[in-house]
């Protein structure tokens, strides 16, 4: 990388220099706490956390960092799983850090206090590995800021063997290129096994006195590890031409890792119980991983295939021991679409009485389908609480929902809302995406019409009901069928929002909320860029752009300047539709999906051709099961009550069904039928990213 590209360090004027290796920074940290907001972010001491250990000796020490503020990062299940797995190893030790909020960062820089762990309050640079969880692309500038706060050079090539190894993993790592200049190695896919394998490599490297380059090459040989330094990137006519291995033994294509059996990984066993209020502040138990509903916009669903369910008895054991240990009175059964879990009804029933005391346990399903069955389930499981229900129809018309393969009919939505309002709810929230492929003004206006109709339905049950319509700009994500699609431009998104504002004006009971299209644009850069986008990200950070998913800290101007400084064109990176022949920046990373499968699905989508859920229907050969040698682990051979994607075939007009798939024999259940996903029960999370997520 050409070092002349560096921009002057302006805003980050106080360099952090770490002296000495190990001791606790707590006395210095504590002096700052009376002057910052929410000091509990920085004290550690959660139930489930390991005890401080100031002299770890020969242990391989990991610092697991979530690059956002504590109350967003703490509940992250991926980080907690790795934390436990590493701490169970006799040769490893894991502690945690989160991005300090801007007031704390200023105090730390003023006092020369580097990024620290929450357990021992040791400086980040004293750890052997700093590992970032990448759940959201707009946190990328925080990754750089955390490295800088640790006293490290942000560019991988400028760090030395005495510096910690910098690893990153998580969903966003499936396009590692925008962060490739800064990260030494990416972990692709499930981390349960990789964490241990990396620890082994680090142990041997330390024992053998390996150089940094030897260590990186060794890591690149671990299946699922991507070491950017081991790959040569070439460009042609300003476009990416190839990303190729530089050394023997380095794979041309890095395949994601997937654990075959979730039952072998009953983590977290001792979920962290925060001392301050955080998002998802409850017991969280993962009931399955992966999703095959096939929503074409949903990166999470595409990259986590196949579906692997946790056995019913294990879920219940985790719920019981978790409630008894933590004292929570709420449990969330988590997955990408929890109503699809084979044992959902018996598990929900058992959870209700699984608490220690007389108080009933409330159960939440963070991702619900849009159908009456699911609403009935929600009524049973939330007990008397009727705070609000959330649905994600994602698009305003049935035509467009077929394009995105979110097979919910208008009647499904009305049926769900009818059930909700008659069941005592007074507020509902509906998520929609705008800027979807083939979207017309009619599709957008239909969102408003749907919302009005929903309010009318509610009025029959109560005088005052509200339906909140939350719209986000669509970002075509890597490894999805829409990865070739053009992201809608800024004027287009603004125009669509204006259209929605006009068509909901004066509509009683309809609340319209939307995400900032400018943030959607920046998310497009970080999601879809190649390695050169790293220069832009660095420029944004150097100009002071941290916490970019927080609207009060986001300014598009920094991204525009950063792109210009990096010599990149925003329209080319974000808004251009890719051709079949284009080399995509993530082509050398495999989520297990055949590129041909994704391309065919992309072509099908353009003719509104829908596909079914392969959990219960014939295989489409997407590649996830065969390529990874991992199969669906689904106990139930038939879809859950209320239908499933594609099994309510009456809703699929004959021309919409793929010709080579025989219609399954499941009965259509009136008033329910096919489905979607996803109430998002996460009030506090900044949701600019939801364009990528099925919730």
């Amino acid at each position, binding site marked *: 990388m050409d070092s002349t590209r560096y921009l002057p360090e302006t805003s980050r004027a106080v360099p952090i220099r770490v002296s000495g290796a190990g001791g606790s920074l707590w*006395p210095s940290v504590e002096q700052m706490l009376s002057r910052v907001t929410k000091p*509990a972010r920085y*004290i550690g001491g959660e139930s*489930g956390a390991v005890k401080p250990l100031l002299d770890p000796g020969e242990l391989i020490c990991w610092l697991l960092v979530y690059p956002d503020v504590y109350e967003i990062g703490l509940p992250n299940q991926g980080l907690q799983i790795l934390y436990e797995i590493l701490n169970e190893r006799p040769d490893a030790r894991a502690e945690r850090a989160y991005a300090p909020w801007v007031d704390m960062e200023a105090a730390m820089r003023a006092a020369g206090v580097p990024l620290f762990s929450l357990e021992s309050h040791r400086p980040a640079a004293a750890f052997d590995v700093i590992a970032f969880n990448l759940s959201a692309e707009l946190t990328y500038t925080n990754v750089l800021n955390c490295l800088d706060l640790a006293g490290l050079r942000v560019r991988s090539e400028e760090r030395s063997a005495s510096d910690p190894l910098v690893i990153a993993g998580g969903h966003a790592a499936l396009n590692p290129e925008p962060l490739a200049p800064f990260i030494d190695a990416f972990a692709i896919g499930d981390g349960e096994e990789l964490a241990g394998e990396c620890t082994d490599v680090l142990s041997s490297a330390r024992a053998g006195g390996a150089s940094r380059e030897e260590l990186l090459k060794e890591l690149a040989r671990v299946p699922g590890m991507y070491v950017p330094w081991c790959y040569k990137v070439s460009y042609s006519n300003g476009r990416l031409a190839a990303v190729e291995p530089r050394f023997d033994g380095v794979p041309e294509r890095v395949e994601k890792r997937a654990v075959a059996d979730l039952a072998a990984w009953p983590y977290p066993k001792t979920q962290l119980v925060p001392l301050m209020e955080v998002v998802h502040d409850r017991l969280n138990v993962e009931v399955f991983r992966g999703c095959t509903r096939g929503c074409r916009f949903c990166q999470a669903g595409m990259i986590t295939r196949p579906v692997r369910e946790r056995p019913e008895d294990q879920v219940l054991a985790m719920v019981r021991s978790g409630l008894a240990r*933590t*004292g929570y009175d709420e449990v969330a059964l988590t997955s990408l679409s929890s109503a699809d879990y084979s044992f959902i009804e018996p598990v929900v029933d058992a959870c209700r009485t699984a608490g220690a*005391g*007389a108080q009933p346990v409330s159960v939440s399903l963070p991702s619900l389908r849009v159908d009456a069955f699911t609403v009935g389930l929600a009524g049973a499981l939330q007990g008397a609480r009727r705070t609000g229900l959330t649905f994600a129809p994602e698009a305003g018309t049935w035509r467009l929902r077929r394009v995105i393969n979110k097979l919910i009919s208008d009647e499904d939505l009305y049926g769900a809302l009818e059930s909700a309002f008659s069941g005592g709810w007074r507020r509902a929230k509906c998520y929609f995406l705008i800027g979807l492929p083939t979207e017309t003004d009619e599709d957008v206006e239909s969102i408003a019409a749907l919302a009005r109709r929903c309010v009318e339905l509610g009025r029959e049950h109560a005088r005052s009901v509200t339906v909140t319509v939350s719209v986000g700009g669509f970002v075509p994500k890597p490894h999805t069928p829409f990865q070739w699609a053009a992201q809608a431009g800024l004027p287009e998104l603004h125009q669509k929002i204006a259209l929605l504002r006009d068509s909901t004006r004066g509509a009683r009971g309809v609340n319209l909320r939307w995400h900032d299209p400018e943030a959607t644009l920046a998310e497009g850069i970080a999601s879809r860029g190649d390695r050169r986008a790293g220069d832009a990200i660095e420029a944004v950070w150097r100009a002071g752009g941290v916490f970019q998913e927080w609207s009060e800290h986001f300014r598009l101007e920094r991204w525009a300047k950063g792109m210009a400084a990096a010599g990149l064109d925003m329209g080319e990176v974000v808004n251009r539709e890719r051709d079949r022949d284009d080399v995509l920046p993530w082509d050398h990373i495999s989520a297990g999906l055949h590129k041909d499968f994704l391309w065919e699905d992309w072509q099908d989508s353009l003719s509104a051709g829908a596909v079914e859920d392969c959990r219960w229907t014939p295989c489409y050969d997407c590649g996830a099961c065969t390529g990874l040698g991992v199969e669906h682990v689904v106990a139930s051979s038939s879809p859950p009550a209320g239908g499933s994607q594609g099994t309510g075939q009456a809703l699929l007009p004959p021309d919409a069904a793929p010709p080579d798939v025989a219609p399954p024999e499941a009965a259509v259940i009136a008033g329910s039928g096919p489905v979607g996903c996803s109430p998002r029960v996460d009030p506090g999370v900044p949701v600019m990213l939801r364009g990528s997520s099925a919730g």
Partner: protein
Amino acid sequence: MPAEQRLRIRYAKLGRVRWISHRDTARALERGMRAAGVPMAVSGGYSPRARISFGLALPTGAESVAEYVDVLVHPDEADGQMRDAIEGAGHAPGDLLDRLAGALPEGIVPLHAERCPRAASSLQEAVQSCTWALMIGNTTSSGHRELADRIASSPAIMVNEQRHGKASEEDVKSRILYVDAGPVPLEPVVRWSGTRGEGIPGEVAGPACGASPSPAAWQVGEQVADTVLVIEVSVRPRGLRLDELAAGLGRLCGSEVTLARARRIHQWIDGAQGKQELLPLGESQGRALERAS
């Protein structure tokens, strides 16, 4: 025996957990009671809540060995040991305090539990005043003694107030009921067995916080003092906030006064024999506060 009983619990908040807010402390206590198997009564209605009520708010950053919480319990719904512990509360805290201690975050230490009449006035209504031990920033032991004398002999302590959006001045001298300099306060020594949560090795015996039981001096940064300010302030008609007090002392001294460390050590009520402490700790009940030898 009535089905529902009211338990009053005194607890300490020491060490790092002093940085969690009053609201977070309340939530931690509620979770801790549930995890310990305390059979809390639950309100009816659309949103069932545990029937638990908290006393005066403790400012974030301040410590205490005199915090209180009231909780309604259903002894009939508890396991046998817990039922015995609740019935025995006030005489032999035993298992109740031990089990709570194991379920609460490190630094939140239950000290005493007592059954109290259902009709007793609430904590918020009952408490008349509280006593603080304060370590003033950049002040030595003798500095604390001089400050105590100065407060005692000063005719007025003026603070600026924002009341109903208007700035005004108020003399708060009359709300300072007692002031002196004294040794740093005692801390509970925690002795419990078992584990702090499943699979997490717990401390078997040791100080509630810090490196040693009840240090003989407080240290904050470079500053060390074995004598600190001990001051009792009235909470009627309204509480005198610590930051207001610091501002008042700053005006008195003509220079900025910061609180390096603050710990509530008593809360006082009007009892049958006049002024008395809520759930005093002693040899026969509760956990004594001790100084390490």
